[in-house]
């Protein structure tokens, strides 16, 4: 256990040093993609509010929506973190060889790597919350922020195990990028990344709740920004634990089958 924790921390720090080696690229891509999302959403919703001559829609003011989009854009970044390829690239290019030789758990190592960018983005989110409190009069409180952060972290672990199942399909398929894009699009739609879920028709809204995605993005943001939520912190956290177990079992099954397919190309 102690060794795994050490490996996690070292994998995290080595990735951090890699990020610092390319800091300009990292921050530029983060700032531009987040800014683009927030600006487009602001312009769109401002027109909608003006057109309908209302100050609130489905419980959201324009300010609340801006905070929502800002938070969800960064949280989405936290979840997708290193992007596709964190495992499949190792399989395709034979880099998995070196991890198979190390007396460590490959998944723990990769999780440590995965968390690096996530935690950097999370730090930006926390700083932004202070700004929202000051400039946009957000109704934040300390407990909801702590709960929101814990949920964002458990969402990241959940999404890591979900994507690692897809990434491990690289043992069989020549290209799995499209699957990654597909799952991200589904998460964006069902997690409220495009539109807050309360704007959805009731049937779709209900259906979406059978998937893990609203609990990964939408509800953690609701808690973080101290908005009314139909689910408590403990309920969402329990749902995360359930999905983590499901995806972990799935990942182990795929790994145990796939390792026989591995040819160690690249040597």
């Amino acid at each position, binding site marked *: 256990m102690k060794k795994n924790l050490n490996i996690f921390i070292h*994998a995290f720090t080595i990735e951090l040093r890699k990020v610092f080696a390319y800091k300009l690229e990292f921050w530029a891509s983060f700032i531009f993609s987040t800014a683009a999302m927030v600006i487009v959403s602001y312009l769109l919703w401002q027109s909608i509010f003006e057109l309908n001559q209302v100050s609130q829609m489905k419980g959201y003011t324009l300010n609340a929506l801006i905070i929502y989009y800002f938070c969800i854009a960064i949280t989405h970044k936290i979840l997708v973190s290193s992007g596709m390829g964190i495992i499949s690239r190792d399989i395709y290019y034979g880099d998995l060889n070196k991890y198979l*030789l190390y*007396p460590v758990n490959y998944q723990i190592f990769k999780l440590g790597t995965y968390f690096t960018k996530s935690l950097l983005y999370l730090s930006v989110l926390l700083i932004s919350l202070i700004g929202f409190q000051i400039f946009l009069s957000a109704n934040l409180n300390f407990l909801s922020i702590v709960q929101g952060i814990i949920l964002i972290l458990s969402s990241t672990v959940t999404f890591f195990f979900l994507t690692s199942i897809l990434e491990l399909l690289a043992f069989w398929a020549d290209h799995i990028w499209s699957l990654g894009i597909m799952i991200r699009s589904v998460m964006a739609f069902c997690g409220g990344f495009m539109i807050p879920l309360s704007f959805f028709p009731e049937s779709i809204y209900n259906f979406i709740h059978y998937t893990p995605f609203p609990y990964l993005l939408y509800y953690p943001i609701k808690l973080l920004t101290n908005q009314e939520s139909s689910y408590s912190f403990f309920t969402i956290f329990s749902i995360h634990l359930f999905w983590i177990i499901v995806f972990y079992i799935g990942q182990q099954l795929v790994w145990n089958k796939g390792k026989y397919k591995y040819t160690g190309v690249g040597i």
Partner: protein
Amino acid sequence: MIKVNNLSKTFKVPTKQAGLKNAFKSLIKKEYITKTALKDVNLKVSKGEILGLVGSNGAGKTTLVKILSGIISSSTGSVSVLGFDPWKRKNAYREKLSLIMGQKAQLWWDLPAADSYLLLKEIYQIEDQRFKKNLQKLTDYLGVKDQLNVPVRKLSLGERMKMELVAALLHDPQVIFLDEPTIGLDIISQKAIREFLKEYMIEHNPIMILTSHYMQDIEELCPRLALMRAGEIIYDGPLNEIKNKFGDVRSLKFDIDHQRSDLEDFFLKKNLKMQCTQNQVSVKVHIDKLTEVMKDLLNNFTISNIQTSQVDIDTVIESYLSYEKKS
């Protein structure tokens, strides 16, 4: 000890026929061919022994190394390394193992090697004192101490390979697989790595398997040779034995100012193949025919600077392979 019994490995490789029609067909049904990478391989390597694994591309050397290191599974047969089944990938086994891949870096490309070493220290749970001692010793010997804090991507190929060696040996492995460790290196770097490996063998006495296309690596480091062809070990024995058996060929070199076609005809009649660079000719002649060939040459041509020498190991192995093919 490494024990390999009746080891075989087959791969299913997808195939695609040419043409649009076949492209559509492959969407519905994929076709595979079974490729045999290893066939009934038997091998034993003891502690302190260094085995040279030689063969042309696709002979199965790397597949064998991958199976021995637990990267891929075997199809049939059994493998035991230090009493472990490599495929089970027990940590106790992996802690004793090292694989150095000349064509695949294990160091983190964007970071200085020192950062990777710190991570390896954690991975292999190397105590502080042992880590410092090993790092100092290895970097001193390989002369890369000053480059420890330079990002790996900015090192020369030779320096990078030396850093890879340091990374692979930091944890004092008992089994070392070297897959073309000198590939792409200049002669000086190749020599430095060979010298280092010799010293390392004397001091640490591990089991070592070396695959290389540079015969000088094999000749200098491996008293024992395993020759592979099409997934099979066709020779496993002392290097000297194969050299004595198939090294009875001499390289005959001389200078000439005659037309090359005359000379070519001369050697063709004797079933010999000559190679010519500017006015220097070289030809490989069996030791029994050497006197006769030289006599005829001197009688028919004006030649100078005649030299005979033993052929290199490449030629010996080439002779063995062609002999095996014929028989």
